[in-house]
């Protein structure tokens, strides 16, 4: 930055705040955020603690602004051009990867010998860069192992959720195993979630094949295209096309956010409980069925509970480690 004095009366602190806001606005534009920008951003942050602190301050406001979505849950909601927004979300989601990886700091993995197993605690996240440049973001409470000794590139998601952005190589397809299902990359970014009852694969970009050899009825194999979500339970597999809420939810965790649209309180609580030791418990069916919409910080169940109380008129109670929601 140039150091010449200007006529303006703005203080040094104001200038720093303005710069911080400009960086923030640039950085949330995931489609055009490049490694070069990240480098310049890192350099700016390192210049002085004032920059870092001003950025945190701007970021805090930005995150809190997301709660405004709650206001709109009462107003009639126009839903213009859904398909149009949908495709935007896709592109955005793909580009987010570049940000996430740099922010979390993949360097720690690049030199040291790779462990065979990676895991995250409740509320944790981790990024893994493979030798070929493929990237895996591991979500909360997850375990992933690298299957070595196999001629193919292969990992197993034993538990939890991960986002994969794979360097495609037709000769050596990348595969993810999850509860007996095999996901084979055909040039791809996708998420896989392995929960106790089902495996969910959401395709962001490119194409992937899901094989579920143990399925007793219906298709045992499906080729996914962007926007497809494959849901495999013990005995069945189905593919849903372009389910906006599920894919958005499937990706927002990589920014530390939970995005709800037409989500019941029960579903929202279940999502929060994946990220927090402090659990949300809903006592009555009426409360469980209430719907909400909004963007929330995944690691703050307490703030969410207070928000739900203020906006939806329910009661909250703190019992031990739990936050109980009821009428």
């Amino acid at each position, binding site marked *: 930055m140039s150091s010449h004095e200007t006529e303006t009366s703005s203080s040094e602190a104001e200038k720093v705040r303005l710069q911080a806001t400009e960086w923030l606005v640039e950085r949330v534009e995931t489609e055009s955020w490049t490694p070069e920008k990240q480098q310049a951003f890192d350099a700016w942050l390192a210049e002085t603690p004032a920059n870092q602190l001003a950025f945190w301050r701007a970021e805090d406001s930005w995150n809190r602004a997301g709660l*405004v979505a709650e206001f709109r849950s009462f107003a009639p909601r126009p839903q213009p051009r859904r398909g*149009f927004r949908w495709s935007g979300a896709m592109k955005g989601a793909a580009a987010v990867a570049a940000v996430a990886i740099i922010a979390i700091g993949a360097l720690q993995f690049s030199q040291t010998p790779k462990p065979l197993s990676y895991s995250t605690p409740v509320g*944790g996240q981790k990024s893994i860069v493979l030798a070929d440049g493929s990237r895996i973001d591991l979500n909360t409470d997850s375990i992933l192992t690298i299957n070595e000794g196999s001629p193919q590139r292969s990992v197993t998601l034993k538990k939890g959720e991960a986002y994969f952005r794979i360097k495609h190589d037709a000769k050596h397809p990348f595969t993810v195993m999850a509860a007996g299902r095999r996901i084979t990359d055909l040039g791809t970014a996708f998420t896989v979630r392995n929960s106790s009852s089902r495996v969910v694969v959401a395709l962001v970009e490119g194409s992937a094949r899901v094989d579920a050899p143990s399925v007793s009825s219906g298709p045992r194999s499906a080729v996914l295209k962007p926007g497809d979500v494959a849901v495999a339970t013990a005995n069945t597999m189905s593919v849903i096309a372009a389910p906006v809420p599920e894919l958005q939810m499937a990706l927002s965790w990589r920014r530390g956010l939970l995005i709800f649209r037409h989500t019941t309180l029960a579903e929202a609580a279940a999502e929060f409980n994946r990220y927090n030791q402090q659990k949300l418990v809903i006592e009555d069916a009426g409360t469980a069925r209430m719907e909400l919409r909004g963007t929330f910080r995944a690691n703050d169940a307490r703030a969410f509970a*207070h928000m739900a109380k203020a906006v939806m008129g329910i009661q909250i109670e703190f019992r031990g480690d739990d936050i109980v929601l009821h009428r």
Partner: protein
Amino acid sequence: MVEKPDTGSENSALHPQGAAVSTHDLKAWFIREVLPLEAALTQFLGRHWPHKEDIDDLCQDVYIRIYESAQRKIPSPTRPFVFAIARNLLIDRFRRNRVTPINGVPDLAALEIATDEPGPDRGTIARDELRLLREAFNRLPPRAREVLVLKRIDNLSRQEIARRLGIAENTVKQHLVEATRRLADMLHEDEGRSS
């Protein structure tokens, strides 16, 4: 390297060299505990420093001192710590600039008053958050507000917002910077203080 064992945080890779507190923890603490004090802090500084136009810079300098100290150990409780830092900074500046303090040098008694003001109770913050946000949003220029909502809530790209509103992408960016900057100021200051 550090005198005390690390308390809790697992991501040691994130620790800056020589620092005992991870950036992650430091950031979480700063946002959760320090930023909510900004209104009280600027008021405190304004009561004692005669030049209103310096307050933002003083506040920034307080933050830097807090940050540097908290890198070694996160203080608890936060509030008395923040105001003690602010007081020391003021005294340094009085000396350096030979400024006559208004209302005298902030002594411990003044400090007590400042620290007795209602603290950031998290429940209160959460309850008031919606009201505060709603008011802040209402005070944004309409176009800037519209752009911020399309970006932040509807998650559209700048390009899409530009197309939808029929304005240049760079104008969208300017609106976003404007809206975010104003919002940050409004969310961190007293209701009465803003213009």
